């Protein structure tokens, strides 16, 4: 995954989003560049300075700095939207070996481009194709949430897996967004504190 999936917002100034490819990312707000350094450190290069000798920070330090700038939601926003590709698991198929069922895997349908949006109560997918139907899920009806490689997956009220991939945005941001909005929705509805988000949402 590219570095911008970890640093979706600038840990230095809070500018959102951070852009980049591969092991490099750049903030258009303050001009800071980020690149993978030695081992698992990230070199933080202030604008106008050469990379050599720039300070390195750990992923944990960067995550804490992003959280310090308000976490997954850009400043002043109470909802969020991003381009996404949706795939739905229409069926579950058995995987057999030597005549025995080892387990089941899902058959994901064709990807459908659109915009995924979240607000305090709802997750909504609006397909780009004009004939596409808008799908909407009440947050309180979602059964599970998880990230899988570069995608975020939710289980809808019927138990169907719906997967969203983001051509530009960070799946880590979306997982955090879903967690934050779900926690708030559960609290408002008096359903208690969420203990875990998968394989199903469990509350205390």
């Amino acid at each position, binding site marked *: *995954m*590219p570095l911008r999936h970890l640093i979706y917002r600038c840990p230095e100034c809070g500018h959102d989003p951070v852009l980049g490819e591969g092991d490099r990312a750049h903030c258009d707000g303050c001009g800071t560049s980020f690149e993978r350094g030695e081992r698992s450190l990230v070199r933080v290069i202030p604008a106008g300075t050469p990379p050599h000798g720039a300070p390195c920070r750990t992923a944990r330090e960067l995550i804490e700095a992003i959280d310090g700038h308000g976490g997954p939601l850009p400043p002043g926003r109470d909802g969020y939207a991003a381009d996404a590709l949706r795939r739905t698991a229409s069926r579950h198929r058995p995987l057999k070996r030597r005549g025995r069922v080892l*387990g089941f895997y899902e058959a994901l349908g064709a990807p459908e481009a659109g915009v995924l949006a979240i607000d305090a109560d709802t997750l909504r997918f609006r397909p780009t194709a004009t004939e596409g139907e808008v799908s909407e899920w009440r947050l309180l009806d979602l059964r599970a949430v998880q990230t899988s490689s570069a995608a975020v997956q939710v289980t809808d009220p019927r138990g169907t897996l719906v997967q969203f991939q983001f051509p530009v945005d960070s799946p880590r941001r979306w997982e955090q967004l879903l967690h934050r909005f779900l926690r708030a929705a559960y609290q408002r509805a008096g359903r208690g504190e969420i203990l875990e988000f998968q394989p199903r949402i469990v509350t205390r």
Partner: protein
Amino acid sequence: MILYRLSQGLVRVSLPLLGVRFRVEGLEHVPRAGAFLLLFNHQSILDPILAQTACPRVVYSMTKSTQFASPLMRWLVPRLGGFPTRRYQVDPQTVRTALRHLAAGRPVGIYPEGERSWDGHLQPFRRGTMRLVLKAGVPVIPCGIRGSYEVKPRWGTRLARGEVTVRFGRPLHIPPARTRAEREARIDETAGLIAEALNAAMES
């Protein structure tokens, strides 16, 4: 399991060519016969390959169901000991397959965190894995993988040079819980015990 053994050899030969030094410690803690649960930390996409290469026994590992999307992977992964688990819903077939392997005296490998860590630190364990530990009643071997995060973190796109150590810890003999109520009551305590052992295996 010819393919399994071949892949172990291939990985051992390939890692030094990629600049990765590979060390295995604590092999004396791996039983030569009989069933056990092998619980790994999960920091990198390399972990399943490294863990299975390090263990002298053939390990049957829970693998996320989305890995089985392509026909090639559906053919290959079961031959390398993998069986699918649907992480976004409670999956009784996964538990049945795991218990079947254990009953046949085979080791079963699980990543109790459920997904790769973003910052390299151990994440909370999935409660379903703890339920399986308490149901199975077999020795639990904590297996700490150190260095894979530095070589290929979740947010990195390339392999870096480095040293990876797979360390098998002392087996934990966790008494099985006979009833569902007992299992639920002992989940947190069991998770704490395993996390402590896994952290020790990762650090030492």
